[in-house]
């Protein structure tokens, strides 16, 4: 039995009066890739934002290695090792690639040598970023920005890396690179929680998956199983 990294227990999150999450429970074990799939508005991003502390759940608890982290402000959740690569990249457009990566390691100011190693590691994973290290983030292409956003996440040396729609709006070739990297990072020991609209790709790489439907859990199970589930195939993989 492996260690449970994250356990989300029956969380309810509201936007004003609207209940966006109506009791979601998710578990991520050490070394896993877990994916949340579902249609637009199902609550996938809301779940990630609630875990990272951008949103606060009204009910329910979130635990990291058994310690409650729900209710903490976002920077404290990051300090605990939960690192979110947000939807739409959200890189710092007027900072260079290098500065963006340094921002990723903002809380690791006491270990400059290890931070340097992380930079090398990111540049090994994404040689394109190395070529463009002095370029401003805003001048990069969409794919490069996604690489930068992921690189920035890796720089934080996460215990749990949460990726929100990493393939959104990217060319198929780039999507391929991004997913290869996700698998590679996981093989290097990083636990990953992945939110994707590209359900087919996500379920192929994931150990386990959760299917969300308007704020509730519809299904859960091993990735391969969900991939062959008739309901999932019909609804999310576009098969008739």
């Amino acid at each position, binding site marked *: 039995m492996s260690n449970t990294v994250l356990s989300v227990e029956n969380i309810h999150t509201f936007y004003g009066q609207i209940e966006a999450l109506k009791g979601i429970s998710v578990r991520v074990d050490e070394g896993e890739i877990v994916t949340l799939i579902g249609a637009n508005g199902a609550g996938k991003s809301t779940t990630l934002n609630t875990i*990272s502390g*951008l949103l606060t759940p009204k009910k329910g608890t979130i635990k990291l290695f058994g310690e409650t982290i729900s209710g903490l*402000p*976002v*920077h404290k959740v*990051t*300090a605990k090792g939960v*690192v*979110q690569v*947000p939807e*739409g990249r*959200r*890189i*710092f*457009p*007027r*900072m260079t690639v290098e*500065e963006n990566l*340094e*921002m*990723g390691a*903002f*809380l690791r*100011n006491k270990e400059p040598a290890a931070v340097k190693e992380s930079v090398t590691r990111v540049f090994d994973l994404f040689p394109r970023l190395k070529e463009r290290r002095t370029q*401003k983030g*805003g*001048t*990069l*292409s*969409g794919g490069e*920005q996604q690489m930068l956003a992921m690189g*920035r996440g890796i720089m*934080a040396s996460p215990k749990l890396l949460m990726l929100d729609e990493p393939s959104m709006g990217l060319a198929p070739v780039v999507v391929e690179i991004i997913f290869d990297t996700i698998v590679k990072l996981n093989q290097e020991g990083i636990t990953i929680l992945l939110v994707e609209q590209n359900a087919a790709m996500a379920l192929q790489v994931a150990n386990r998956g959760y299917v969300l439907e308007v704020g509730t859990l519809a299904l859960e199970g091993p990735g391969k199983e969900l991939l062959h589930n008739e309901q999932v195939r019909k609804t999310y993989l576009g098969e008739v």
Partner: protein
Amino acid sequence: MSLSYLLEQTLNGITLGGLYALVALGYTLVYGILLMINFAHSELFMLGGYVGLGVLKVLSDPAVAKATGWGFLEPIQSFFMSGNFGFVMLLVATFGISAIVVGILGMFIERFAYRPLRHAPRLAPLISAIGVSIFLQNAVLLWIDSKQLPYTRVDGSAFVTAKTAFTIGSVNVSTMQVFIVVTSLVLLALLDTFVSKTRIGRAMRATSQDREAAGLMGVDINRVIALAFFIGPALGAIAGVFNGMYYGSVKFNMGFIPGIKSFTAAVIGGIGNLRGAMLGGFLLGIVESLASGFLSNAYRDVVAFVVLILVLIFRPGGLLGEAVAEKV
């Protein structure tokens, strides 16, 4: 219209520009992070002048020691009034205390007047800022004085006597002018280095570019905002003390016009951009001085705002406004 007259006006303009630049930084820092115009900033500039005057009187006016009957002030005053070292320490204490007091007040204002409205519609904090501005002006008017106070000791002697530092041709450059320009340039350079080279400075830039993403990096946003609300008002306060020393008096409503001018300078340079605020400040100061010297003093504001309009027509983002195309 001799060359030396031109030079003299330019020097006046650079001095004025240094003051504008210091105040403009406060507007631009806050705008960069919160996308909000801190309309109370001009009042913090004004308060800086008052706090500076208070410190100067307590530390170097024998009449104050007598009037209050505080015997312990006498040895302190004799230290600050003896020799060059004492004088330099007096200036350091005056500017330092004024900057710190007003800086803390700035943080206080953010905490209680703006932070509760952070998620409110954008107009709400703006109105709150105007409220703070009116409150501060009236507080000074009621509790200190409605009249203008001379920036001197009770006996009328100036704390800092303006001497001629050096002459270029036939133009005298006063020590006060040198002092203002050098200090403002040093402070601008320090701030620029802080923001581009240090870890906290980088966190400030990150916060101004994407607040939520900066939070995800582990930056405590509230601390960054509080810091911006310390640095900006502290620089404004220093400008306020200079303003008092240079023009010789303070008044409760003295912040209004320099505040508007400095805000204009920040917009001319590209609001949100620190170097832009510096450039805009000096540019506006020089243009204004030349206009008042060569056209008429009555035209100085007209010319200043014409420059603003021209910049907004031809470079709406300001002179150094961000030109980076952001891909979505």
